[in-house]
């Protein structure tokens, strides 16, 4: 991971020096331990703050929609899932490829902090991490443990099928190609909870989701962090008709928000898991998205948004689609 950071700094300095780009969007060290935050390097001096590590979660492509970056040349650091989000934006002509310099990075997945905390007694403040082949060495004054990398990896990354952008699609790729982990899981294995919920009866399912959704404070983090949720004016921000109000005591309003949020990104979800990661109440929002992906794949064939060239399953329809509604009548 270290060499990616160094390479990244060199490239960024080069790009800024030669005035090829106005700004390099990447990650910098956050205030919390093991937190990386989005960072815009505009001058040569900023470059030394740039890093890329296993905590570089957030997708940066959404910043491109900001007025601040309009008409500017921007270099962007992209993992596989970030590229998929950007590809959808490029396909929809939301951003101009000519204005971008894409720096693809070899992604080996991002760490899940909650999983990491379970592995150690010490707090994250005291520990240092060292990534070896497929082991993660965690050391503090009290203990030295080595855990398999896949045990602390984010579940979304274990199901990732597209960890690094393709060479042809980006301007440069940093890092050396390698497998993410030794463990290869199918999506079904990673999201086993879906199967469990499907097995419940209707009442249990309702109670399960009631418990989850009632915690929602409607902070809209899930919407804001999603790399493919990019409407200029969001339905929920519209004043007329106003679909939601500020009352968070009504389950119906939570259902309304979450059904529509999941539905609007159903055939474009890239499975980065950022919605669940940013949720302050730990609502398993990705389950809704994964459920929709599962249904779409089941009925209309497998489709990877932002990777496959074919049109998205909800953007067209065929005469010979399965018809669950007609069958009831006969």
């Amino acid at each position, binding site marked *: 991971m270290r060499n990616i950071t160094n390479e990244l700094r060199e490239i960024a300095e080069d790009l800024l020096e030669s005035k090829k780009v106005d700004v390099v969007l990447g990650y910098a060290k956050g205030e919390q331990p093991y937190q990386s935050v989005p960072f815009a390097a505009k001058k040569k001096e900023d470059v030394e703050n740039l890093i890329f590590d296993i905590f570089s979660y957030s997708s940066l492509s959404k910043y491109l929609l900001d007025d601040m970056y309009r008409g500017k040349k921007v270099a962007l650091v992209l993992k596989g899932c970030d590229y998929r989000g950007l590809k959808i934006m490029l396909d929809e002509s939301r951003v101009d490829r000519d204005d971008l310099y894409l720096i693809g990075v070899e992604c080996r997945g991002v760490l899940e902090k909650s999983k990491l905390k379970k592995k150690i007694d010490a707090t994250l403040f005291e520990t240092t991490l060292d990534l070896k082949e497929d082991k993660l060495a965690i050391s503090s004054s009290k203990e030295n443990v080595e855990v398999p990398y896949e045990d602390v990896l984010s579940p979304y990354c274990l199901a990732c099928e597209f960890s690094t952008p393709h060479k042809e699609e980006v301007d440069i790729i940093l890092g050396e190609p390698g497998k993410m982990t030794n463990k290869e899981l199918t999506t079904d294995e990673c999201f086993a909870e879906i199967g469990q*919920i*499907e097995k419940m009866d*209707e*009442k*249990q*399912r*309702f*109670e*399960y*989701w*009631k418990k989850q959704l009632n915690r929602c404070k409607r902070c809209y983090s899930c919407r804001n962090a999603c790399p493919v949720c990019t409407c200029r004016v969001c*339905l929920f921000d519209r004043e007329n008709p106003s*679909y939601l109000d500020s*009352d968070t005591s*009504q*389950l*119906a*309003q939570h*259902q*309304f928000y*979450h*059904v*529509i949020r*999941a*539905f*609007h990104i*159903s055939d474009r979800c890239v499975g980065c898991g950022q919605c669940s990661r940013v949720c302050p109440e730990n609502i398993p929002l990705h389950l*809704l998205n994964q*459920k*929709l992906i599962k*249904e*779409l794949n089941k*009925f*209309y064939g497998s489709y990877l948004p932002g990777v496959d060239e074919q049109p998205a*399953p*909800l953007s067209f*329809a*065929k*005469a010979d*689609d*399965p*018809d*669950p*509604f*007609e069958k009831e*009548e006969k």
Partner: protein
Amino acid sequence: MIEQNFEPKIVAFCCNWCSYAGADLAGTGRLKYPENVRIIRVPCSSRVEVQMIMRAFQNGADGVMVAGCHPGDCHYDTGNYHTRRRMMLLQSLTSFLGMDPDRFIVKWISGNEAAKFKSTVEEFNETLKKLGPADKVRDQRCGI
């Protein structure tokens, strides 16, 4: 508890070209169907968005029906195919969330099927009577 004499509220989104004409024909043909159905005319069944359906439930509907032309008969050629894809997905998502999938139906009713419109509404009305009020998806502040 299911109230006695519970009269469900049905919101029916009817496509202008087929189902609305079907409902109209039922009216001119003096066919009697339950009067607790509120018909909303839409230009095409694919005009019905997820938020419209969810909002109907929030604001007092006990059941929502989306009615369009028979597949293959769409005035705009492919509109109802889109409806079918989307509504199928919505139904699986809402039932995944534990909401009642029977409260939401999609029917294909053409312009001369007044009798089918009548029987569909009657049948749906009966189902909803058995299910009772849709409290699970209702915004409790709307006072219905």
